């Protein structure tokens, strides 16, 4: 009996602090996001008025929100497609070919992932600078120096400049991930297919990709969710949504409404939409990429 008491006491001491912190700083705030989205609530005054789904209705007619929706979608598509395919190609090269300095390449490609997004934003601001930037000075070598490109100032270009920075940041991480899963593909498969005269390209599409498909699916789902978050970090540090809303994304718009503009209720309604959207999109992608698992 005494032992049972001691056991309960031990379990409780171990579990209570973590659970408490988790409830206070994650569960309750998450719950509050949903609750606040149903209220009209502005500023530090405690005037909260229950308005039901009014905030959501207002969202549908908010052109700025729709623009942030469009920007987010565009970023997700471009960044996901480029990052995933490049990460896969580089992983395949580094794990399948005999490359000198293979380890050095792997170490270098991973560097962007350990840098703060603030740093990456500063680096890319220096790269994209219209007058003394690295990119424009490179372009001027090819005789395009007369009219500089405004990478961060031109509304049509800026979203692609942002995508460039995001791809730069993410490739290495996913490459290392795919290299790990490619290492588990048995070497004999490649050997026997080589005897049958399969080219490298055929091996890539018919052996490597199908065998690591489960891994690709999971990373894809996570990548979409993390792109929504990362695009916010980049926008916050690099463009602040400008020029004129052309890089506003979901979460930066939410933050602007809720924190800067103090329209808490409205901002949280944006949050709810983004939350639901990201889960919905992941579910769709998950469904679309479903294949019969391959057993060896």
């Amino acid at each position, binding site marked *: 009996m005494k032992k049972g008491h*001691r056991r*309960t006491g*031990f*379990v409780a*001491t*171990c*579990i209570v*602090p*973590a*659970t408490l*912190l*988790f409830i*206070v*700083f*994650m569960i*309750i705030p*998450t719950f*509050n*996001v949903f609750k*606040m989205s149903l209220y009209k609530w502005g500023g530090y005054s405690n005037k909260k008025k229950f308005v039901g789904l009014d905030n959501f209705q207002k969202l549908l007619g908010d052109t700025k929100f729709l623009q942030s929706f469009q920007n987010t979608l565009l970023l997700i598509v471009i960044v996901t497609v480029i990052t995933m395919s490049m990460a896969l190609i580089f992983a395949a090269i580094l794990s399948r070919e005999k*490359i000198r300095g293979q380890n050095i390449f792997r170490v*270098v*490609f*991973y560097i*962007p992932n*350990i*840098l*703060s*997004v*603030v*740093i990456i*934003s*500063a*680096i890319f*601001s*220096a790269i994209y*600078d219209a*007058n*003394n*930037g*690295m990119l424009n*000075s490179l372009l001027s070598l090819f005789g395009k120096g007369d009219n500089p490109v405004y990478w961060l100032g031109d509304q049509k270009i800026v979203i692609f400049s942002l995508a460039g920075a995001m791809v*730069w940041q993410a490739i*290495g991480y996913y490459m*290392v*991930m795919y290299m790990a899963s490619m290492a588990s593909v048995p070497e004999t498969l490649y050997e026997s297919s080589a005897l049958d005269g399969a080219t490298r390209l055929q091996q890539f599409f018919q052996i490597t990709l199908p065998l690591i498909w489960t891994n690709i699916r999971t*990373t894809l789902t*996570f990548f979409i*969710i*993390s792109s929504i*978050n990362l695009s916010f*970090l980049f926008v*916050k*540090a690099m463009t602040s949504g400008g020029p004129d809303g052309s890089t506003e994304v979901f979460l930066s718009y*939410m*933050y602007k409404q*809720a924190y800067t503009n103090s329209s*808490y209720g409205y901002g*949280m309604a944006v949050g709810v939409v983004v939350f639901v959207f990201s*889960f919905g999109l992941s579910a769709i992608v998950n469904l679309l990429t479903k294949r019969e698992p391959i057993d060896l």
Partner: protein
Amino acid sequence: MKEQKNGKSFSLYKVFVYAILILLAVSIIVPVCWVFMASLKQNSEFYGNPWSLPASFYLQNFVDAWTKARMGEYMLNSVITTALALGLLLVIALPAAYVLSRFQFHGRKIINVAFMAGLFINVNYIVVPIFLMFVDGNLFLKKIGLPPFLLNNIFVLAVVYAATALPFTIYLLSGYFVTLPKDFEEAAYMDGASYSRTMIQIIFPMAKPSIITVILFNFLSFWNEYIIAMTLLADPKGGKTLPVGLMNLMKAQNAAAQYGQMYAGLVMVMLPTLILYICVQKKLTQGMTLGGLKG
């Protein structure tokens, strides 16, 4: 190596492969090195060819950043916040992960599910509600005659960091603890060791590789974090962490054109993570596959 000697296999394809590998490597190394170079330039050197080498090692940038731009103070704040958050996280997450993965008790399943669900809650969504909670908390503290300490406080920031890192950390540690055979504990209990002693002296030392992975990943995320820090350290004149201070400097930079200081600040944020990375890069990339994905 042998293959290359017969000449033919070193084909156009190989050249192409090396070319794109080197191109990507250069596109990563050059901008990073450029920042180091820029941190040694005088302000006037920033108007002109970006590729020119610094005229001299203008170390005054670092002195200015350290004192005038308050980067020294911010650095200290960042070190304290990161260290405290890491310490707190380990003290809280280790026992919780251990108990959750190795003891049967009522409510275990629901707590496990809750922490798993927590993996999908990104702090960017909940940072404003946390901020508002602290605003309310401060009002309450004032009412009962205590100093309102919840905002603009790096210790509170550290607690929030630790709390929001719990799901990922517990997930990663539990993944290791469940793989251990029961024999270790049974032997320890036979020898009369208490539960806590068994946990601290037998189990935790065995989990060292996982613990190191946890420390590495969370160090990077705490050190580089700026959305929570920016929101909770709201006082424009008050203390900040290094990335937040740097972001302000980037924005002030447009007006005051103090590039040198800004790049010196960048080096200060970047250098600790780069040094750490060089020391432990193998552990980090191995740990990544061990821990699965981060959100």
